[in-house]
């Protein structure tokens, strides 16, 4: 069953708006404040402590790389880009800078709630994907150990590769560990899989 839907609430969030004084900035602030968000406006430079903010809203037209104290590959929070120009270079930069959602200028009296939900969701999704990819990469890097364990089992049990793999999987399941961890464990035993049998 799908998890129960929860109305996204941004109550208690801290937002940093990177924009020069302008009616667009005022309208953004007003919308954020209506949602119970504490807003700090900054121009021209973000400071290190702003990486603690829950969301950063930045001007994609006039802001530039030098204003951010963290590197583009580090995205500490969900970000929303405010776009006036749709020149592809600017859009590309906004995406590279971590914008998970955008609002078109001029900023009126709606759009921020939806943009926040989208930015937060895409931030969480990206975070989850990154973790998953790191995990998979790590498992991929341990493929030689898995092959070694299967070969050992084939030799010791005089079985085919499929059966040996099933045996390794059973060991992993019994120990509630990953296949890779089971392979490491097996390879570390002086007598391989039979060592286990001797002890038992």
């Amino acid at each position, binding site marked *: 069953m799908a998890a*129960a*839907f*929860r*109305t996204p*609430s*941004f*109550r208690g969030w801290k937002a940093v708006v990177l924009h020069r004084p302008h009616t667009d900035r005022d309208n953004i602030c*007003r*919308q954020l*404040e*209506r*949602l*119970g968000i504490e807003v700090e406006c900054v121009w021209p430079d973000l400071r290190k402590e702003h990486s603690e903010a829950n969301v950063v809203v930045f001007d994609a037209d006039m802001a530039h790389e030098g204003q951010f104290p963290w590197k583009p590959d580090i995205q500490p929070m969900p970000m929303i880009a405010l776009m006036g120009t749709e020149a592809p270079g600017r859009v590309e930069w906004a995406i590279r800078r971590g914008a998970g959602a955008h609002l078109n200028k001029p900023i*009126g*009296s*709606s759009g921020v*709630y939806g943009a926040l939900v989208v930015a937060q969701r895409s931030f969480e999704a990206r975070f989850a994907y990154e973790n998953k990819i790191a995990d998979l990469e790590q498992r991929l890097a341990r493929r030689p150990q898995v092959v070694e364990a299967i070969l050992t089992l084939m030799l010791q049990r005089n079985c085919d590769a499929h059966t040996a793999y099933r045996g390794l999987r059973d060991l992993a399941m019994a120990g509630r560990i990953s296949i890779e961890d089971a392979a490491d464990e097996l390879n570390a035993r002086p007598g391989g899989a039979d060592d286990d049998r001797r002890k038992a």
Partner: protein
Amino acid sequence: MTRQEIPVGVLFSSVGPYAEIGREAREGARAAIDEINASGDFGFRFTCVEADPQGEADRYAVLAERLMREEGCRHIIGCQTSWSRKEVLPVLERHQGVLWYTAPYEGFESHDRVLYTGACPNQNVVPLFQYAVPAFGNRAYLLGSNYIWGWEVNRIARELLGADGGCVLGERYIPIGDEQVAHLIEEIREKRPDFILNNLIGTSSYAFLRAYRALGREDPFFLPSRCPVISCNLTEAELPVLGAAAEGVISTSTYFETLDTADNRAFLARMRLLRGADAQISAMFTGPYLAAWLLARAIAETGKADPQGIIARLPDRPRPTPLGPVVIDRQTQHAHLTPHIGVVEGAASVRDRARFRLVGTRPAPLAPDPYLVDYDPHAGFARAPSGAASLDRETGPQLRLVT
């Protein structure tokens, strides 16, 4: 000296699927404008400029454009569905006008060009559930017309029920104006929920309530005392057309004819002189009526009909109206409102007049929270210690039982 004439747009549908409430709304705006013009209290007169989209969502923007561009209206009192309101928003932006939106709605909007005087979710569906869940249970069947009002109110309902450990036994939508409801009745018969939340509008709602009453005659499980229909938008305006089918329906509204206040008694006496002793007065009537009064007070205070000035100078203190003082919150542009809960009685009687008996209210108006920022749906519902049969609300901080 002749008084300045200020044109005010009145944009409601007098025919189409929700014509009953549209006509009431138009009457409410007319009544207030007549009173304002006759009062001598103001240095201006309102000219009521009416437009009738006939229930077609796409006609609202066209007519709003006409009201603002050709008729010179800076203010429109109108729209009763979120669909039509959203159609009108670009027109308001283009002409820097204001829409006074007086119907209850699903929230999650706070547009600069709209003043919202109808209840938003913390003032409609939340108090309705604070009443209904402890009284009847938390297994619900959700119904709606197939557009944003039903979708969003039912979504909030789903969240409220889920947080209470309850469940949604069914959730169905039918197009506005559709009267084919047999499949809904069949599913309800099978699922046997604790109550039904009805977000159908107009003729679809009438068809459903008639069919559901027939179901109750076949199987007493579906009588209002055991498995009631609850609603955020049923008002007195629709009781005559519904007849006996309305009996026992529980609704929340920020106005009921049966409110026992000196202001309301005086108001009803005036309205009955105007509309006849049998006229039903409802929130659909009082919404636009109050909006016109609030507009008149705002123009009197700011000295101009300029929408920008009126929005910029929304006061923190209440503005007087014939139904008591009203505050419009400056930050969200929504009104502080008191949600009441009423149950329809007398609808099945040939002698009595159908009316809402008040079963729950609050001592003071509730601040608007259109984005549910300050409300935690997961806080659960206060229940009376003696179980579902009791409606004693002493344990609940939100609603007071009216005896």
